[in-house]
């Protein structure tokens, strides 16, 4: 579906055909049920579900949200109904929209990731997996995997062997060398890299004289993290061959264009949806308008453009 103008918005992300390059980020869209009250889900390129675990999880103690300058901290703790309930109740609901659904999975052990991948393999309506080795809000697993290249590779290999679905690996920015982790993920068989999850942060309640979040620390998201996310997309795009899904602080179409030009093939909109439920479809429109204004025929022409310009090879041809 081309929302306006003539530009071609279609992209291919690791074998998943997206009608436009805008996905919704895990954890900021639930399983889509609430969002259908806001807009027709077919207006976005695809859905990434809330992080899903083998067993249901109640999540972390409240308070789970703290506002920060240009963003927020969250410590949800992967609250979700468990993969069986998701396969039984949520996927069939989402399937009706006919758009790609990518399930974000999180485990406490390598075996759990493999079991999740096996359960979701061949589930009608699941287009791919996003392997979350980057959640800062759980005690076991989560980010612990994503901060070590060997552990990341072990998870990716196990998932790769358990499914024929496209496998995207979502990395954490809470590392010294993102490129090393991304390389390890690619070598272990990842079809795409998703960048970035939240940055670990803290807020103090100065009236209560204690950390504000029930879980003490949380993950920072929103416009505050956009420069960090862009830098990581840039570095990783220069080092690996698989496509990148860019995410972090995208509020507008022009924010998305920055990610594409840095080397992302598609983007995911996260916190923006919390404050503007229509953000993702609006960003699709804004990207289309940009392409038209600038005379680009295809959104694919933007991917890595800033890299090519810098290298002297790809001025607005």
């Amino acid at each position, binding site marked *: 579906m081309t929302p306006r103008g003539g530009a071609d918005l279609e992209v291919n992300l690791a074998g998943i055909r997206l009608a436009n390059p805008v996905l919704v980020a895990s954890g*900021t869209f639930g399983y889509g049920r609430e969002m259908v009250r806001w807009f027709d889900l077919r207006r976005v390129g695809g859905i990434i579900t809330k992080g899903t675990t083998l067993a249901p999880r109640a999540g972390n103690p409240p308070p789970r949200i703290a506002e920060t300058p*240009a963003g927020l901290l969250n410590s949800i703790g992967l609250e979700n109904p468990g993969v069986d309930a998701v396969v039984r109740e949520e996927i069939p609901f989402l399937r009706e929209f006919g758009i790609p659904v990518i399930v974000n999975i999180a485990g406490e052990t390598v075996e759990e990731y493999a079991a999740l991948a096996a359960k979701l393999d061949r589930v009608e309506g699941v287009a791919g997996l996003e392997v979350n080795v980057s959640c800062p809000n759980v005690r076991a697993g989560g980010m612990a995997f994503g901060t070590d290249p060997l552990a990341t590779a072990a998870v990716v290999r196990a998932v790769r062997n358990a499914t024929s679905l496209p496998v995207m690996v979502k990395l954490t920015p809470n590392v010294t060398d993102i490129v090393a982790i991304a390389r390890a993920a690619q070598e272990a068989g990842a079809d795409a890299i998703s960048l970035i999850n939240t940055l670990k942060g803290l807020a103090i309640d100065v009236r209560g004289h204690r950390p504000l979040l029930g879980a003490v620390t949380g993950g920072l998201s929103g*416009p505050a993290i956009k420069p960090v996310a862009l830098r990581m997309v840039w570095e990783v795009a220069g080092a690996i061959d698989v496509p990148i899904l860019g995410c972090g602080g995208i509020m507008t179409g022009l924010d998305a264009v920055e990610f594409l030009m840095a080397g992302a093939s598609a983007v995911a909109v996260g916190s923006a949806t919390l404050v503007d439920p229509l953000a993702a479809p609006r960003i699709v429109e804004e990207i289309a308008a940009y392409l038209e204004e600038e005379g680009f025929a295809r959104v694919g022409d933007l991917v890595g453009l800033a890299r090519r310009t810098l290298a002297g090879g790809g001025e607005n041809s």
Partner: protein
Amino acid sequence: MRKLPDWVQEAGRVLAWREVVPGHGRLDVRAPALAARARPGQFAMVRAAPALRGGAVGMAPFLGRPLSFFDMDTTGGVVSFLVRVTGEGTRALAACRPGDVLVLLGPFGNGFPAANSGTLLLVAGGVGVAPFPPVARAAVSAGARVTALVGARSAPLVLGVRELRDAGAEVVVCTEDGSRGRCGMVTDVLPQLLDGFGAGPSAAFACGPPAMLAPVARLLEQAGLELHVSLEARMGCGFGVCRGCAVPAARGGYLHVCQDGPVFPARAVDLEAVARLWGAGTRAR
């Protein structure tokens, strides 16, 4: 007739911010789509429009602020909020001038159950009175009698009495220092009030600081009444996607204020735990 979509995003024009007592104001906003949909006890997420904040999208306040409907004028297309100025977000609301634009999302939450016969008892602490005028008006026009117990620290901080009377409720005021109405906290005055009820109220709703809700629930349980409470939680979205607004459920696990609430049967929630969680950091309202 086509059913109205129940949730809307609306750019509302500020009609007025008026300080009603120190640190608290009434905010009137022209938002016809929201006014047409809002039910008593529901809330909206309210955010100063980015254009008002120097044009920078995403600068603080980044998140919307949940506020209960204090009044909704369907024909005039106006919604009103009673706001306690607490921090940055509510300060931005207090700085609004007529004509400023706010972004409102809603109406969210399940609201209070309908009370259309017998006597409805409302118990409010501080700005907790905010959701009650629409509740009282609906109950009175459906044929119920409404008594509201309104508590505050001292006389200059008593809120909502005129609006409740206008809505047809009988209002009993109490202040902790005895400077207006009966002396004591609502939990001190509530037992006397219940004694005076004769047949007793047929329904009871409470809203106020978490530390007040647990004892109020105990008192009403002793009186054999089911209480409904309106709760607060820090919210990311207000409409169910972030899972940020968890409160401890009585049977373990969590309930979500924006979807399961903000109004809950008191026995569904672990009110003691809610009070502990909010305790240290939140000053009494």
